[in-house]
């Protein structure tokens, strides 16, 4: 083991103790029936057959997919848009950049409560300004609202997009200008294609994030409603485990999600290699 490898041991030990060990424990619980109150009882693959037949779970998974379908493109567009807009070296742009990052560093709960007020059907500012109510009481309204909420927390993607944009040499843009390329042509034929590999990876990362990140908003704003429209898989797992005392089955779902997430991460890794962005 070389010298630098040694420095990673504390982190690896932490990961092992706080992530790997609980994950393994949860993985074994997936094959049991466990209420938390009594010791786990081995049930083999029963939980998995239950999973396949669980309509509520498939509905939750569908909700998660819908969330991803709305939120990921929104977030990516917002991050890229903000990065391109705020790329100049003007004072206004420099001041605006931390503002883009701000929603991301606001604690999850505070952010969710802020939106709870914003989206209040009768007394919130949006209702006062546009007169519409019923965003959180309507299934699609709630879904879109939660996705839009997530679209503001683009801090990390924004920074990556900005860095990628900056890495394109200025002379390339000047050559395009002399070549007579207008702003739209430059954007579509130069900027976006050059940013594309990283953006694709950002999108994948966002998909992985979106599999989990909507837990707090769903819990605090809609409690999974209305009509279960915003019951995403993480919320479903939480409820199954801690409200209905089915920790074994909840572990089964969690294990399945882990496998799916691992697959997506693997795809991302292979793509990164192909585009020569990873070792």
């Amino acid at each position: 083991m070389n010298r630098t490898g040694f420095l990673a041991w504390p982190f690896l030990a932490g990961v092992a103790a706080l992530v790997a060990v609980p994950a393994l424990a949860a993985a074994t619980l997936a094959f049991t029936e466990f209420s938390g109150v009594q010791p786990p009882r081995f049930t083999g693959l029963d939980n998995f057959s239950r999973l396949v037949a669980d309509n509520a779970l498939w509905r939750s998974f569908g909700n998660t997919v819908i969330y991803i379908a709305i939120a990921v493109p929104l977030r990516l567009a917002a991050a890229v848009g903000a990065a391109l807009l705020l790329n100049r070296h003007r004072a206004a742009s420099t001041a605006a950049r931390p503002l883009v990052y701000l929603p991301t560093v606001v604690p999850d709960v505070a952010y969710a409560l802020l939106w709870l007020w914003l989206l209040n059907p009768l007394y919130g500012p949006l209702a006062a300004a546009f007169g519409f109510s019923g965003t959180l009481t309507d299934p699609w309204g709630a879904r879109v609202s939660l996705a839009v909420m997530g679209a503001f927390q683009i801090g990390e993607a924004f920074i990556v997009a900005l860095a990628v944009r900056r890495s394109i040499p200025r002379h390339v843009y000047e050559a395009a200008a002399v070549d007579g390329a207008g702003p739209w042509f430059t954007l579509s034929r130069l900027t976006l294609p050059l940013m594309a590999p990283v953006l694709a990876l950002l999108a994948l990362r966002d998909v992985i994030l979106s599999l989990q990140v909507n837990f707090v908003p769903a819990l605090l704003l809609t409690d999974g409603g209305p009509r279960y429209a915003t019951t995403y898989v993480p919320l479903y797992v939480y409820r199954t485990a801690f409200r209905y005392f089915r920790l074994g089955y909840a572990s089964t779902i969690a294990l399945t999600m882990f496998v799916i997430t691992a697959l997506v991460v693997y795809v991302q890794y292979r793509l990164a290699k192909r585009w020569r962005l990873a070792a």
Partner: protein
Amino acid sequence: MTVRLSGISKTFTGHHGPNLVLDDVTLEVPEGSMTVVVGPSGSGKTTLLRCVAGLEHPDHGAIEVGGRDVTALPPGERDVAMVFQDYALYPHLSVRDNIAFGLKARKVARDEVDLQVRRAADTVGLEPHLDRLPDRLSGGERQRVALARALVRRPVAFLLDEPLSNLDAELRARTRIEIRSLQRALETTTLYVTHDQVEALTMGDQIALLRDGRLEQVGDAMEVYERPTNAFVARFLGTPPMNLIPSRLLGSGNGTLIGVRPERMQLVEPVDGRVSGEVVAVEPVGADVIVHVRLEAETVLVRADTRDAPRLAETVGVAFADGDVHRFSEDGSRLA
């Protein structure tokens, strides 16, 4: 289709306060010819070129391309093409698409684009590489792509920003000739910027010397070489540079500088009454040698035939004809 710059001035505000980069530059590039703007680094020559391209905006002055005042126009509407020092190729596009970029941006029809691209590639000899990506090309090939990209648009003027400085010596010499013959064949008005005075002398129909943002002299090779208007120009052109000897070392102490090119000096016997000094260095440069002769505090360079090379520490005399003398006042300006 001339390119005309009138009274161009530009100031950059930097860390140390305002910096006058171009000072009232007026220059005309005659139609179909190549003017080389040459000067030391920091002289403002690249800025001048970028002003013509439209990538910089002068604070004062006007730029005319092909009879049109383009000072207020964006780069894309000036009908000029630029070759950048680092080529600035579009890294994600093939050679073909790189060349085609400008045409596509102007919505030229597909067939026409294909035709023009092929022609341009042919002109610079890039036919076999059309589908390669820039990172798979050598430096020289990349430069040719940059050239092809410029000429495919048949612009009114070419702007070349030190195109040879990233090439190795051998390639440089070859490419110099290629660019020159290409320019002549196309008869496109060209503005060429370099810091290399050899390039300037060999390539330019007209040479403009720029120092600290100010044009020192404009003229053809012969003129600037044989009749430099000041000491800067005199020393900038020519390898090795012209000797500037304070007149007192040559007998007449009237505070002027006597300029004689090394190749116009001869080594002679150190007889009394003649200018003489000790040989402190002898540099072989192929068929000749450059002899460094110490005259009191000054060192004078003399180009001599190898066969006549003196030995170190030898005392030699230097002689020159009166007609080969350039006289400058102490501040560098030419005298009579």
